[in-house]
């Protein structure tokens, strides 16, 4: 379980996050949604301590991530897997080396064991046999899959995905969403997905948090999101023509 408490962050006197709190539960795929520029990525970076907020804190199973020494922090970091927006694969390493990298740096595993683990993760994301390719040689959707494989290679307890389906076609997006959901259920982990894609919202949101201009305006799930009444949320949800027609017709 991850708890964020009263997180506030500003850049050059501009408030980007304003007192955001929330809980992300184990075994659930929680979504953080909102328009571009509302601070979703900054919130994620605060949770990962890549950006330190001015106020508030993040707890991982009750352990405060911002206090404690480097070693405590490293222990928590070892339990995290992150899929960054563009995949953030290391360009100078092959797909296989990318996925193996956390094992090389953070574990004492033998070569054979590492290889098996990488193969397992590649298979999990449906990319058997592509381990030898370079990141520049694979498509955007494949990069995200490799990113997911690298994120889960250490058997994380917490999985974070920043816009896993941005820049992908609708079909590939849905497959990536399903993959994330499947991994969450299978390994019973705490997953936080940042998205502005309504398809994902409707298909994988066990729990949804809506951010607008740095504030949390609404919280619910994929069933309640269609019926609820915060005006900013309605605008966000029903900007899709198909959805708004559906609502008009019902």
């Amino acid at each position, binding site marked *: 379980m991850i708890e964020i408490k009263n997180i506030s962050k500003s850049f050059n006197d501009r408030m980007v996050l304003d007192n955001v709190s929330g809980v992300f539960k184990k075994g659930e795929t929680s979504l953080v949604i909102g328009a571009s520029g509302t601070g979703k990525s900054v919130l994620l970076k605060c949770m990962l301590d890549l950006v330190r907020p001015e106020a508030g804190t993040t707890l991982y199973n009750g352990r405060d991530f911002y206090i404690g020494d480097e070693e405590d922090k490293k222990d928590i970091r070892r339990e995290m897997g992150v899929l960054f927006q563009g995949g953030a694969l290391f360009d100078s390493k092959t797909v296989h080396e990318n996925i193996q990298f956390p094992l090389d*740096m953070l574990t004492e595993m033998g070569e054979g064991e590492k290889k098996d683990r990488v193969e397992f993760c590649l298979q999990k994301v449906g990319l058997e046999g592509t381990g030898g390719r370079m990141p520049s040689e694979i498509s955007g959707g494949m990069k995200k899959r490799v990113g997911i494989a690298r994120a889960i290679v250490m058997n994380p307890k917490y999985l974070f995905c920043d816009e896993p389906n941005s820049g992908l076609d609708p079909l590939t997006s849905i497959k990536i969403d399903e993959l994330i959901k499947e991994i969450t259920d299978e390994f019973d982990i705490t997953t936080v997905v940042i998205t502005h894609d309504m398809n994902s919202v409707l298909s994988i949101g066990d729990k949804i948090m809506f951010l607008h201009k740095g504030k949390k305006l609404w919280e619910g799930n994929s069933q309640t999101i269609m019926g609820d009444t915060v005006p900013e949320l309605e605008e966000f949800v029903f900007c899709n023509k198909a959805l708004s027609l559906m609502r008009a017709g019902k």
Partner: protein
Amino acid sequence: MLSVIGRYLIFLGKLFTRRESLKVYWKRFIDECIGIGVSSVFIVAIVAVFIGAVVCVQTRANLVSPVIPVYVVSNIVRDMTLLELSSTFMCVVLAGKVGSNIAGELGTMKITEQIDALEVMGINSASYLVLPKLLAAVFTFPLLAIISGFLGIFGGYLAGTLSGIITPEDYIYGIRYSFIPFNVFISIIKAIVFGFLISTISAFQGYNTRGGALEVGQASTSAVTNSCIAVLIADYLLAELLT
């Protein structure tokens, strides 16, 4: 300006704290020696041979007095090469090649969140990425300086003898005449200092890139400019200090 220097010093501090295991660095160090050192041999060789040749021809053209013995030409080629060309001039060239490469690589890693990915794994990204580059530069630049010094003098020999300006015997006599071995040492010291400056300044520029492709280009440019300025200032200070 002062705050930039302050941040640069903090950045240097970060390189040496909270390191990863030595085994990790060893492999990265070898890779960087190839990327920074070995791949620069060609450009360094070309520059050294031609500058040595030009210095020889120019010196001869300007020393027409019959009272000055002709071996002075190679004597001047030797001192110019060892004192300035093989270290300072070479490092200005390397600031362009190595500096822009380091800043571009780190800048791209920064904006594509590869550096964040390292940090999230609990790896000290500054140390993991930059320290091997720094060590590789400090290790390979002196070797390049030696190659450059040798080839510079050799370039002068080729130009001088092939064009008939100076006989091979005079040239050899000149480069051995009143030779101060300490000058070779100065060249090596300078290469070490410049290697440190170029690699860390360029890494600092790249590591602090924010934005997109445009900013990566700007980071590369300022890496080269700032490295060159730092090299020239350090050259002056070392000249005061060592001679």
